[in-house]
């Protein structure tokens, strides 16, 4: 089984999740749990840093869909950054860029929250 990891760094009211490895149906619950924890702590401003993610499946994308409404209801958002072209292609193919802020760099994502 491929490894998947989530690390979290809080920057004031914004939480950055660094995800690495394989994100598929097997590892999706780990990410779900990490996001659920943030929501339980009423932290609704999320940046997902994809820098070290080597693979994402449709199921992995599904995780973001499962939380987005609830987060936006609380004036929060999920912003995504640092995707490799391979990962971005998957998001792009399925039309995610029309719904999510996908930016080149984590700092940019944080700036977007601030503005």
């Amino acid at each position, binding site marked *: 089984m491929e490894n998947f990891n989530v690390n979290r760094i809080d920057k004031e009211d914004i939480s950055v999740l660094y995800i690495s490895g394989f994100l598929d149906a097997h590892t999706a619950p780990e990410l779900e749990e990490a996001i659920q924890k943030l929501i339980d702590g009423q932290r609704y401003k999320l940046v997902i840093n994809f820098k070290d993610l080597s693979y994402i499946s449709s*199921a992995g994308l*599904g995780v973001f*869909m499962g939380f987005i409404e609830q987060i936006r209801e609380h004036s929060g958002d999920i912003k995504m950054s640092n995707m490799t072209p391979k990962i971005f292609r998957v998001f792009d193919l*399925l039309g995610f860029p029309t719904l999510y802020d996908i930016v080149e760099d984590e700092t940019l994502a944080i700036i977007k929250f601030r503005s």
Partner: protein
Amino acid sequence: MEDAKEPGIVNSELDQRHVELKSLFETSKVLNSSLQLNTILNNLLLTPMGRMMISRGLVMVSEDGNKFSIRNIKGLSRELLNSTCDVEFRFDKPVFLTDVDLNECKLKNFFLELGIELILPINSTSRMIGMIALGKKINRSRYTEAELEFLNSLTNLASTAIENAIIFQKLESVNRKLDTKIQQLNTIFDIGRELNSTLDKKKIVNLLVYAIMGEMAAQRCNIFLKKGTKLTFADYRGGATKTGEMAVFADPDLLRELADVTKPFLVKDTILPSALAPLRNLNINAVVPMRIQDKTGGVVLLGERINHVDYTADDLEFLATLCNAAAISLENARLFDETIEKQRMEEELNIAREIQTRLLPDSYPEYDHFEIMGYNVPSREVGGDYFDCIRLDQHRFAIAIGDVSGKGAPASLLMSNLHAGLHTLIMTKADITTILSKLNNLIQAHTTFDKFITFFYAEINIDEFTLTYANAGHNPPFLYRRDGSCMSLEKGGLLLGMMPNLTYETETIQLKPGDQLLMFTDGVTEAMNTLEMEYGEWRLQAILEYALKNDLKIQELINKIVVEVKDFSQGMPQADDITMLGLKVLN
């Protein structure tokens, strides 16, 4: 990153198709590699949600074909998880809720309220095992034919995996139950071994308490044990014993009801008799009797388990087995104590027997013209029969026989009193009348009215060949004369110990060579056979006649009587002490 969206790289039909196939491939790989229902359902929901940008969805699964429960949920309140309902609606392809008749699908409104738009069946070869419900796509576009086809393929792929996972889950639960049973059996085995290796009551109770509390994680445990016929509070573990509780546990009505418990039961599932009602307030959840040979030897009260889970029927069965094993152990310990106690008493009685035997003569004065022989076998370890033969002076000796009312240890105490009294009086050189009167007063003064002694006393003058006697209510001894006549020696008075200040008659008989005197207690004449017939005086007289004719030695006579009485009683246990004293006058 807008520049990544260049024509030729994205939006190509081929790429779409590629991702779709890859997704199906990955899904099928994941589905078939997992037996965990949740992983499968995660995949089943997250894949279309990710692919088609759907923000909410749920999966319902049915294990029996009727009750469907929500087993996975995304983008909706988690409180819905595991809620269950009956679903009669059956369908075999993706259906939009707007196209469904409310009468057909009662869940329609429930789904619409959750923002569900599309439901898909998960059908196995034999039945519908579940359904997926998906919300609107976030970009509000309608599901395309291709997407519906993809979803259909996905559910088809999932159905076998889900079915397997359900079976696997059931197996796991059965396995778990089996493991629990094995664990409990091991505990019973372990405890059984421990219980069998100890006869210490305190240790047995300790073992029981720890086994129960360890295995069941019970917060508290009270043990009551039977003492005599009543239950009493024996031990307590867990929490603090409050004074109010101890009062409840001492209530005789409660203890009586508990003593009648024959089967383990749960307090919450049982209509309690009013005497047991206080158990509810004491946080007692289960009552388990300690049964031994169809009797309740004790009761264990169990508090709530630490994990707040109810005791199951299996648990109660386990507890009952454990408690019964402990009950047997406690009974063994009790029997062991009893045996020890009995052994101690037997030892004491043996010592008493030895003392008593020493009170009876073990040798007889030797005279040229008199043969004397005594015989005594008590029916128990010690007895109340007495006989004696005492040299008075160079011309005279005394013979005596007595029978104390009752048997065993009490009678033996009085018998030793009689022995001491007689020997003391003889030393005062008192005459026969005085001896019997004083003995009577002595016995009467120190016993209750229902204790008395039949007693025969005689003195023989070896120079004059005379026998002077007095009989205090004893079976008259037989004096067989050489000429074939027989005398009953009856002169005397009342039994010793009945009333004070009595006088006793005496009679003097001139003895002749060949005369035989047999003194005996009623243990001889009242010996029973299996037909409940008594040996009787006539049989005794017949032997005496025979002895006279055949000129038997006194020892031979006594032995013959012993053998005949034994033959007569045909193995019936000896009911009373048997004592004889014989005297033969020689040429």
